[in-house]
């Protein structure tokens, strides 16, 4: 086995099944734009002993509709997700934002519909964001990967405030050989992505991401890491527009040792 199992299982906490059947919730952005993050997630989960499947009928969690006030569409998409991901021990996704939608928003969406509310609660109870699933549910530390760089970590808002993800990625990243983590000012302040916000209010969004990239820059880090592709696309896009060479990766890519390809927004290496 390529993982060191940490004896950190809290007394009384339900023990995870030995080889759990895990459905990967790829997330729409990872599916379309950066599949590498999805495969990094698969590697981390398989290394931890999970049997990983990626249900074919999955599309999106429905958050864009929910946050736009179109609750009816959000409900229909949520029902599709609930059905697609029935029967797995766990549902795990490489995004605090999408997983917070499933964990926190689905039950709220069906507050007036007892039958679906029960199903939503059942799914919520076994759905997790990838990094916190590794640390808090499986209690594993991934096999050591390597990256020679100084990196800074951006806390994406939903993961941080809805799911309490703060220390977990830092703990795991501290095991990456050669990687030095430095904290930026206001790492917990929104980068200005906000889903449709970034294109509905581009001037405000660009101001916010400029504040963010200035903080990234001030650390002197050559690598920016995070746990949500939406935020990473926003920050990488702004860094690139400013002519910065900061490389941007999802934390899962680094932890899985799969950050050797082009960074987000970076050109493919040409021989």
């Amino acid at each position: 086995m390529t993982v060191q199992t940490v004896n950190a299982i809290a007394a009384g906490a339900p023990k995870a099944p030995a080889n759990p059947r895990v459905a990967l919730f790829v997330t729409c952005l990872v599916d379309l734009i950066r599949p590498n993050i999805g495969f990094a997630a698969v590697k981390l989960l398989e290394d931890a002993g999970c049997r990983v499947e990626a249900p074919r009928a999955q599309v999106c969690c429905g958050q864009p509709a929910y946050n736009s006030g179109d609750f009816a569409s959000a409900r229909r998409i949520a029902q599709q997700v609930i059905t697609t991901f029935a029967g797995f021990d766990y549902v795990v996704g490489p995004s605090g934002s999408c997983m917070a939608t499933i964990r926190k928003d689905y039950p709220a969406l069906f507050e007036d519909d007892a039958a679906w509310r029960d199903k939503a609660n059942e799914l919520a109870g076994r759905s997790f964001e990838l990094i916190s699933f590794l640390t808090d549910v499986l209690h594993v530390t991934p096999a050591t990967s390597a990256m020679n760089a100084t990196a800074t970590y951006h806390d994406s808002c939903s993961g941080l405030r809805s799911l309490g993800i703060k220390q977990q990625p830092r703990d795991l990243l501290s095991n990456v050989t050669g990687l030095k983590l430095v904290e930026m000012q206001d790492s917990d302040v929104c980068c200005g992505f906000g889903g449709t916000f970034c294109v509905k209010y581009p001037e405000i969004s660009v101001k916010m991401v400029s504040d963010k990239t200035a903080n990234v820059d001030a650390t002197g880090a050559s690598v920016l890491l995070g746990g949500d592709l939406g935020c990473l696309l926003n920050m990488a896009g702004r860094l690139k527009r400013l002519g910065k060479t900061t490389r941007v990766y999802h934390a899962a890519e680094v932890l899985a040792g799969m950050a050797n390809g082009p960074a987000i927004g970076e050109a493919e290496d040409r021989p």
Partner: protein
Amino acid sequence: MTAHPLNFDRRVAAGLGDEGLQKSLSALKGSFVAARGRAVLALPEFEALRDDGKAIKDHTLANLDAYLETYEAAVIARGGHVHWARDAAEARDIVRAICKQAGARTVTKGKSMVSEEIELNAALEADGLEVVETDAGEYILQLGREMPSHIVMPTVHKTTEQIADLFQKHHAAHGFPDRTLDAAELIGQVRSVLRGKYFKADVGITGANFLVAETGSNIIVTNEGNGDLTSTLARVHIVTTGIEKVVPTLEDLSVMLRLLARSALGSEITSYTTLSTGPRRPGDLDGPEAYHVVLIDNGRANMLSGHFREMLRCIRCGACMNHCPVYMSVGGHAYGSVYPGPMGAVLTPMISGHEAAGELPHACTLNGRCQSVCPVKIPLPDLLRRLRHEQWEQKLVSGTVRFGISAWAWLALRPRLYRATTSLAMRVLGRLGRSKGAFRWLPLASGWTDGRDLPAPEGLTFSELWARRQQR
């Protein structure tokens, strides 16, 4: 509240382009956010206090009718008068009638956001009264004929230079002909000008941070002491306040006060915490001859039932806006309302209607930082999303957004078609973008690409690559 003449986009552009404002906002971030953080760290029970504050407000709101009647009876028992106003116009008329009855010519005012909400000054001035704001910030705004841009620090958008210019223009007549940038001198000028007004005032109007039902007291907290002078030196004291400000007991008040100063300023308590209970009694050395409270609904009672009741817990500390990256980017005037920031984005549509404040609930990333610092744990992002839902249901959302979301949802509910469409699109975008890694421009994507590059997709989707892996 009247609708702002400029549309939201223009106000945002003005805020983003205002160098003085941007400098002030940076300073605010460094000072008040840091100070609140220290104050919270220094009080280990702060989290428990937040829960207490929330519980006190929830209990009061669930029994608001009873507590308001208790409060009214207590005020009357101590010789005061209570007036009930359904809306802003009624509230203005009540205050105007009291001023007229008192034969008032000069009115001093302590800081009161509710009086801004009901646009009281203009109404009193139209009656020929001299109205003098006594809070230094509000005084500056009155000279400049401006709206507050923050509920606690109303002049946060103004630089010292701008204030110096304003004072030079208006204070020459008061014996201060020279322009000064010295903060102490500027404050000294305000004191000197206001001193005479306090004694001249017939009516003093204040707001209320809280009302206490058991004693019939109103409470104001200030750091300048101007509120005390306003409420005690005039012949008549009028309190203008919202019906949601009541708490049951003095003990409840102490919990709220501990939350308020820490959340607003990062200090343990304000310099002055003043309880006014009725008019001057026989034997009192000072105090007004008459004491009136105007309890204003103006949309609040409608919020009691349904999803927005939690907003009525708000104690107007301003922590939500101090911690809001949108507010900190565009400043308070961009919201076009006396209530800016996250709390304003919820309250303004509730008071003025969706038509007048339609953009406000949308101009937010739902990042949740406001909720995490709210002393009474108002779920501001949920309430903003709920307002978006109301707009969606009432078809007030722009046609483009409506079409975009509906079309996308339609596709998302057809996974096979979704996969076929998106994999083709990603193939094309991947091929076009791979050599540079990102797009500087794409048709129909200027919202993104005007300010940042758009990272190019890898080309094949995860779903395609996964299917290939399964076949091996």
